[in-house]
Structures are given as C-alpha cells and as structure tokens.
C-alpha cells in the first residue's frame, strides 16, 4: 500500500488552518495538493503526495545517503 509520489511545490496559497493548498509538479503535470501536514515545506521543496495530501517533505541531503552508503561499502570490499 501507499502509493506516494514525489513532486515539486511550485506555488502555495494559504487558505485556512485546515487547508494549505499548493500546486505540485510531477514530471510535467501539475496537481493541486493539500500541504497542511507539511507546514515546513516551501516553494521549491519536494514532497511525497498520497491521495491529494503531502505526507512528508523530502530531505535532499538525506536523499544522497543511499548513494554515499553504496560508495562506502564498495570501497570496503
């Protein structure tokens, strides 16, 4: 379960405490997404989107770790 897709926030309009609506871009298509669960996310950030809500902000530094880790283990071998 849990199809959540990474997309880039390109626009945010604050609406209410229950809805912080943003436009998120997924490879060239744009969808309206509710950003209420990621108050720390801003325009230019990437978020994971599931059923119309952003559920997590993607940390770009951490995203590198899977590659850095591979380099480490390859060097050790």
């Amino acid at each position, binding site marked *: 379960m*849990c199809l959540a897709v990474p997309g880039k926030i390109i626009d945010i309009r604050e609406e209410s405490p*229950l809805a912080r609506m943003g436009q998120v871009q997924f490879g060239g298509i744009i969808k309206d997404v509710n950003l209420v669960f990621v108050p720390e996310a801003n325009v230019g950030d990437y978020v994971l989107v599931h059923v119309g*809500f952003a559920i997590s902000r993607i940390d770009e530094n951490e*995203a590198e770790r899977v590659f850095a880790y*591979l380099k480490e283990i390859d060097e050790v071998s």
Partner: protein
Amino acid sequence: MKFLDEYRESGTVQRYASAIRRIVTGPWTIMEVCGGQTHAIVRFGIDELLPAEITLAHGPGCPVCVTPLELIDKAIEIASRPNVIFCSFGDMLRVPGSHTDLFSVKADGRDVRIVYSPMDALAIAASNPKQQVVFFAVGFETTAPANAMAVYQAREKQIENFSILVSHVLVPPAIEAILSSPANRVQGFLAAGHVCTIMGYDEYEPIVQRYRVPIVVTGFEPLDILQGVYLCVRQLEGRRAAVENQYVRAVRRKGNEPARQLIERVFRVTPRKWRGIGEIPHSGLSLSPEFAEFDAERRFGLTAYTAEESSDCMSGLVLQGLKKPQECPAFGTRCTPEHPLGATMVSSEGACAAYYRYRRS
C-alpha cells in the same frame, strides 16, 4: 522525474545487488510488508537480482486484501441503497464480497464513483446536498490523515450528508501477529516506508526487543528495496536485531506530528478483523466518539452484520507469507485477475495478482 529516476538507475541497482551477494551466507527469509513494495519487486524483477540464499516473503501489506469480508458486504449494501453516492478508491471495486462486488453494483445502475482523494468525496457531498455520500475509507496509517481531514472538514463545514465506512488497519500489530505464529519463518522485515512517514518507527522497538528480528524501514524504489535488503541481511549475518531507517529522505523517527495529532483526534484504536487472518487486537482504527456521527455503519444501521469466508481461497496463508501464490491450487486456473476468488488476486498490490501479472513463465 526527480527522486524516482535516480532510484531506478540500473548501474547503481546492480552494485547494491553485488554488495548483497558479497555479504550473504544465508539462507534468510525476509518479508516486505507493504503491497507497494511487492508491486515494485515484481514490476522491476528485483527478486531476479537477489542471490538464491534470500527468500522474499510477501506480507499482508495490502489494506485492500485484508479488508474483512463483512465490510465489503456492508459497502455493497450501502452502495445499493437509493439516493446514495458511494465513493471509493479504484482498488476496492473488484474485491469480491460474499455474493457480488462494487463493480457489479455499479453495473446495476447504482451511483458508485471512483475518486483519487477522500476530499473529492467530500466535494461531491457538498455539491449533492440531497443525497447521502459515503466514502470507503480503506487504508493503512498512510491514508488515515487524509481520511481524518475529510471527516474533520465535514464537521467544520457542516456537510451533514457525508459519512465514511472505515476499514483502517495498522501495520505493527500485523507484524507481531505474524511473528507470534508458531508457523512463522520470517527472520527480518522491510517495514512499510510510507506508513512510517506518518507514524515514525518508535513502535517497532518493542517488537524488535521481544522477537529479536531486524526491522528496516524501507522505501519503494528498486534502490530503496535493495538497500533495505542489504541492511537487513547485514544485521542477520551479524546476528543483530535493531530498527533501522533506510528511507531517510522521507521518514523521521517521530513521523509526521500534525498528521498524527489529527489521527488521534478523529480516530481511536480498536480490534480489527483481517481477511484471511482473523481478528488482531489494537490493529484497526474506528471513528472516535467525537466524530461518531460520520460513521456510515451507524448511519445505515449495519453494525451487527457478520459474514463467512469461502474455503477455496487461501489468501490468508499468502498474506502471512506461509504460502506463495503459485502454491495455491486455484492460482491461475479457477482464480485469475478476471475472476478472483480472493482479495489477493484482485488488488494490483495483492501478492497473487502481482505474481500472475508479472511472473508466470
């Protein structure tokens, strides 16, 4: 697409596969819990890349598959009533109930609609004040915040013709149920990454302590799964057992605070029946007393209904990782995606459907 393509890059994937081969002595059985991970493994042929010492078992990570039979029947009952608009995620439409499925109800002329988000169902309720709009709120913890928000906004905006039929299940109790079974052969877990974006991963610590199995929070792309397997195997080879986070770009230890707060307000933890497995205590969510008026089972008077499972379908054993789909006598003959006997063949995440689609050869 950023954060997808680089995790599907062939060269890096091969290097992780080699790294696993270098450290494994095995054999090890690792279960990936989430249906989305099953889908990725089969779609990308990831099991082809793993050494033979590693067996991947596919877990009950498909809320579609584990929604109890009586809930499907209740959904069908509600959808069949006049003046109801029944909204659902696409996944649920072909899951067989005791006699029929939602797709057939739609064919009979009832207003059954597929939506992408529970908020779409709420919007339909707002535009159709004279009809009852019911949303089939299925999912793991990942979907709970969205479903909670739909109900919360319904109350705030006084959209009274909206209600939800709740079938939420929680992952950690399911993992415990699998581990506590005497027939269990799973030695390590890849925990469902998107569930953990919401819930964090503290709740796996007591499980690891009690059962001494590694649990690695894992993402959904080929690189994520391979790194998840690598970390799990590394623990197993080192005879360690700990909770590790592979999906660091999306998951934090405490999860998503605002989402968890809303879930705690709108839902409460209850026992829940898992189709093919049985009742697991503290494994489901129901609406809290504050929001009980939005419970469709109450609104439509269906709380007392129960149903019996067919004996042909062994999806329960498949869901617990005790059998592989192709070990079922009905697999591919009496039971195919066109006429499924059980939910694991209906849902595109179900192990049986995934095997049928991608692997038969």
